[in-house]
Structure formats: structure tokens, C-alpha cells
């Protein structure tokens, strides 16, 4: 029987690496539903979970899948689901439930071209704004964007760690290219993989308040069946978890749910910089597009354009501060993404006119070739924007 951490070197697709990352992070429940191109995450983990004492269930639809992972997490088990655009849309209401009830869980979206049924077997990055705002109401969310199967492994572990630390759903926003790409993946020894679990209550059960923040600013989480008699509701609630339908309670609850993420941007936001030190033109990209843009940076440099890449590993919360500071000193920002301008809107907003920004986008179904990015950089550097 295989262990949870399959230490070794593999030639593995992104979807499978994602499943292995989840297991390494301690995921022991997966409630899923098949959808191209995320099905393989579920298929692989369906075989692996029983080996590590976990449980897999294919639910009747994505709504049920999302509900089931929240239930499992409330029972104290780290849980995950995987889907693509149409399923992601279905999961939105319950993602809001996880946000409001501060339930840790991981949702993987292997993006494909939309809208609607779109191009099921061809990747895109068109769900990025939906990742931020897909559920109704106002809230914060954490979304990570891996650029390789190796990185999916690590970022899935990170997704669990962030979700447990901040008691929030965390989205792993990958795409079909990375999901179906087979590449070298090294899985390290278990002891080298840091895993985090949700803060746990200490002290009197009778006086325990399920939504009273602990010293970290996040409320310790009691699981079902431990005798804490907690009440958890999606209604606006106070620290006892009781629904209280007042404006004051709404303000307090929102401050807590959003504050725990907003106060910890330093911990949550991860970015990678390539040749940025003296860059005059900065490519802002993420996921598979950041990867194809690496070649564009080098090509542009060959042509004498001082290009650099800011790769967003954390896409939400958006690294506003970094964009603002870059906008002050560079001549231009280029957003490269497989959609028609979503993260680009954030880049533009944060640049606030201090530097011009340009989008190199595509409606979906294919990668953005480095050549197109180089052309844009050339046009930019000629001043033709």
C-alpha cells in the first residue's frame, strides 16, 4: 500500500500532481464530479484516498460536491474538490457558505475556454474574475496560479496550508494546459513538506464561542462531535455563531471574515520576479501564460528591450502594492492572460495611469505564443500604445 507522500521523481500530469499534492498536505476527503479537464484529479485521488485512510465520493453534481467538502471539513477532515468552468459556476453559492462559515477547503479549477460549455478540452484563463467575485456578496478569497505540474504539487500543499491558517476556501486556478501537461515532478520526503492545520480550541467547552478570534486573529475551529455544541450558519452571525439580523453584526462579521486575509497580505501574496531589476517594460502574468512569457522576456531582451516578468503566484488577493510601486518607475505594463482582460483590469486599476498598460489576451483555447508578447513589447517600446 502506498503512503500519502510518494517521495520520488515522476513524469506526471498537472492533474495527477495536484492530487498527490493534496494527499501530501493531509487531504483525506474528496467530493467530486467529473468534468473535462479536471476529471483526472478525481480519478487519481479516488484510487489513492482509500490507501491513506481517506474517503472519496463522486457526488451527483458540483453543488453537492462543494457541499460535501464543507461538511467533511466541519467534521475535522481536510477536504478538496476539483472542477472546471461550468462546475465552478455551480459551486459558487457554497463557496460563499465556506467563506461565511470560515470553513477551510480547497477548490481546484482547471480552467477551460468558456463561457458556457465552450471548448471543454482546451484551456483558458477566463475564470479569474469569477474566482474573485463569483459568489454573491462581498468577501475576500485566496487564489493561487501554478505554472507547471511541479508547481501544482507545491501550490496545492500551500493551498491547504493557507486555507487551514486563515479558515477560508482557497482556489487553485490552473488551466487545461498545465493540467494535462506531463512533466518532471519531484515529490520530496514527507518531513520536508510543511503542513498546517486549523487552530484548535483550548479551554472551557461551555464558554467556547466558535467565531471568537484567537491570538492569530482567526477563530479556533471545533469539529462536529467534539462536545463544543457549536452552531454554524450562513446567516450573518455573531461570535457565538447565532444569527443576528442587524447592521452592526454584519459590519463586525464582515470585518472579521475579510480582515483575517487583509491583515496578512505579506504571508499570503507570493510573486516571482524575472529580470525585473532594471526592467522598463514589465509583463504581468500567471499560470501557463507566465510560463510562455518567460521566453518573450528573453527574446525581447535580445532585441534590446528591457523586459521583465512579474509572475503572480497568488492572484487573489491581488498584489496591488507591487504593481503600484512598479508603475511609478517603469515605462509600461503588459498583462498576458488567456482571456480578454481580467487581471488586466486590476493591473490598470493599480497602475492608476502612472504607467500605460497593455493587454495581450486571447478568448481561449490556446496558449499565447511568446512571439505575440514580443510584438506587443516592441510596439510599446516604440511608443505606439
Amino acid at each position: 500500500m502506498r503512503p500519502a507522500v510518494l517521495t520520488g521523481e515522476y513524469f506526471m500530469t498537472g492533474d495527477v500532481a495536484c492530487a498527490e499534492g493534496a494527499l501530501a498536505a493531509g487531504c483525506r476527503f474528496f467530493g467530486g464530479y467529473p468534468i473535462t479537464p479536471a476529471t483526472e484529479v478525481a480519478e487519481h485521488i479516488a484510487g489513492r484516498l482509500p490507501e491513506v485512510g481517506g474517503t472519496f465520493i463522486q457526488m451527483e453534481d458540483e453543488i453537492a460536491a462543494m457541499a460535501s467538502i464543507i461538511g467533511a471539513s466541519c467534521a475535522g477532515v481536510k477536504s478538496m474538490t476539483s472542477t472546471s468552468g461550468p462546475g465552478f459556476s455551480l459551486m459558487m453559492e457554497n463557496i460563499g457558505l465556506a467563506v461565511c462559515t470560515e470553513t477551510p477547503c480547497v477548490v481546484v479549477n482547471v480552467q477551460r475556454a468558456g463561457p458556457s460549455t465552450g471548448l471543454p478540452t482546451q484551456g483558458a484563463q477566463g475564470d479569474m474574475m469569477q474566482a474573485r467575485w463569483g459568489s454573491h456578496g462581498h468577501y475576500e478569497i485566496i487564489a493561487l496560479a501554478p505554472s507547471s505540474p511541479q508547481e501544482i504539487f507545491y501550490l496545492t500543499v500551500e493551498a491547504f496550508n493557507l486555507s487551514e491558517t486563515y479558515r477560508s476556501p482557497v482556489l487553485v486556478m490552473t488551466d487545461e494546459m498545465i493540467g494535462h501537461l506531463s512533466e518532471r515532478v519531484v515529490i520530496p520526503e514527507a518531513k520536508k513538506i510543511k503542513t498546517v492545520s486549523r487552530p484548535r480550541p483550548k479551554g472551557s467547552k461551555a464558554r467556547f464561542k466558535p467565531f471568537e478570534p484567537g491570538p492569530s486573529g482567526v477563530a479556533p475551529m471545533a469539529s462536529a462531535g467534539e462536545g463544543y455544541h457549536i452552531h454554524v450558519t450562513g446567516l450573518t452571525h455573531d461570535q457565538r455563531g447565532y444569527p443576528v439580523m442587524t447592521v452592526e453584526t454584519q459590519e463586525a462579521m464582515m470585518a472579521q471574515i475579510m480582515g483575517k486575509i487583509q491583515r496578512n497580505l505579506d504571508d499570503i501574496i507570493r510573486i516571482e520576479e524575472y529580470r525585473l531589476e532594471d526592467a522598463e517594460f514589465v509583463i504581468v502574468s500567471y499560470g501557463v501564460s507566465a510560463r510562455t512569457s518567460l521566453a518573450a522576456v528573453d527574446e525581447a531582451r535580445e532585441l534590446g528591450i528591457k523586459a521583465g516578468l512579474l509572475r503572480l503566484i497568488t492572484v487573489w488577493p491581488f498584489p496591488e502594492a507591487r504593481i503600484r510601486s512598479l508603475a511609478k518607475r517603469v515605462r509600461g505594463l503588459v498583462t498576458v492572460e488567456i482571456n480578454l482582460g481580467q487581471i488586466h483590469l486590476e493591473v490598470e486599476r493599480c497602475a492608476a495611469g502612472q504607467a500605460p498598460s497593455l493587454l495581450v489576451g486571447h478568448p481561449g483555447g490556446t496558449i499565447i505564443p511568446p512571439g505575440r508578447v514580443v510584438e506587443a513589447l516592441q510596439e510599446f517600446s516604440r511608443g505606439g500604445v
Partner: protein
Amino acid sequence: MNQPRKQETHPLDGLLRVDRIPHIWCPGCGIGTAFSASLIAMRESGIDLEKTVMVSGIGCSGRGAGYVNLDSYHTTHGRAIPFATGMKLAKPELNVVVFSGDGDLFAIGGNHFIHAARRNVDLTVVCVNNFNYGMTGGQVAATTPINARTTTTPAGNPDGPFNLPLLAYASGATYVARWTILHTRELMESIQEALLNRGFSFVEILSPCPINYGRRNKESGIASLKIYQDKTIIRNDARPWELEIDFDRGIVLGKFIETERPTCTDRYDSTCRPKELLEGEKTLE
């Protein structure tokens, strides 16, 4: 209000969040009775209450979870059952009780109900059927009797209601019963049996909704109870397809199905965690 009142406690106060009593349900609403019967059944059944969890959806019945002094989860509309499924599969030693309403469980939640029953997830589903969507003001539901008046069927309901025990039976439930809040003793006993039954157990409870359903159909709370007294018959041997909701013909109450078959967890363990896998070198791929 300024006179000091004797501090009285009710025998069920230990199981209630007394700081939230009186509850929000209307005068004469049967949910309170159904909820009370459920608490008594939980207490009398002998199950470990510390490991007992109540999960509900949205609606008047869904508020029940907020009043029980146990771990309780008030989830999204229609999704109490998949939430409960995830919870039960992740931690099988929990006793998971779903307490929700007819609209939540059978309209928006219908798909989840039939699948959980098919899988025989070891849950106890207590459905308060007040024949409408009460909380939102009395709209038609999948259980509203034909010709009944609701706010979205002002001319009378053109559609017919589900036969819930038949639906539960056909989907694979291993315990199926229907009572009214008037038949309180049978109801308490039935919920107790449902709790102790291994597998997907379902109890339908007919209940007055005096303010929303009742006012539009000229049925006060007492009038509803009178109907439950006069127009029902207990026939435990009735077949599920004989249990149509037809108040003119009469409603059949009783415990219709009580059986046992392997639960979802039983079969997952025996099929997906086979001994050769756990003990040997074999892998699943």
C-alpha cells in the same frame, strides 16, 4: 414586565439554546412540535448526543438547527443532505440528523435526497411538510395539494404534490414513515426508530402553517389539526404507492418501510478498501 417571574425550566431545556427561546415560529406552527418530538426521540433513543449533529437547510424548518444545543449546521438551500453526506463519510461515528422542510428537501434539494437514499447514507432525515414555502410568504411547493391556494398559485395549484414516502422508498430509503404533529406519540417513537435504523431513514411530518398556507386555504392551526384527526388513517401495511396526498380521500399515516441493507460507508469500506489492498502490495492502478 417589571414583575419578577418565577424562573421555570422545561424538561427539554437541556437540549435547547434557551437564550434563543421563544423561537421565531408562528403561533400554531407545527415545526415546534416536530422539533420537540425530534429532541425527545434523540434523548430517548440512547444515542450519544455528544456525537449527534443536526444539519438543516433554508426555510422555517431549517431554523431548527439554530435552536438545538448540539453541534448544528444551518447550510444553503437544498444542500443539507450533501453537506450531511460529506460530514458522515468523513467522520462515520457521528449521528447525523437532517431536520428541514419540504421545499428545501424536495424541490431544490430533490436530487440530493434521491442520491443519498440510493447510496443509503446513514442519515436520519426529518422532513416537516407544511405544503408550501413558509418562510418566504407561502408560495407553492412540490408538496402543495392540487387546487390549494398559495401566493404563486392564486387561482389554485394546477400541479399535484409528490408522494414523499413513495419517492423515498423508490430511491432506496430503509426507513419510511409519515405522521402528523397531532399524532405526537407515534411521531416521537418513529423518529426514535429512524435514528436507530442503520441507513437512510426518512420521516415525513405533516404540519400546519397557519399564517401562510393556512390563511390562504381557510385553515387555522386548530382546523389543520382537526383535518389531521378526521382525514387520516393509520395503516402501517400500506404500500408506498397508496400514499398519495389527497385530503378528500384521506391521508394514510404509518411506518411503511423498516428494513436494513448495507450503508454507503459499509459498501465503500468493503468495495474500495478491500483487504488485499490494505494488507498487500496491490495498488488500485
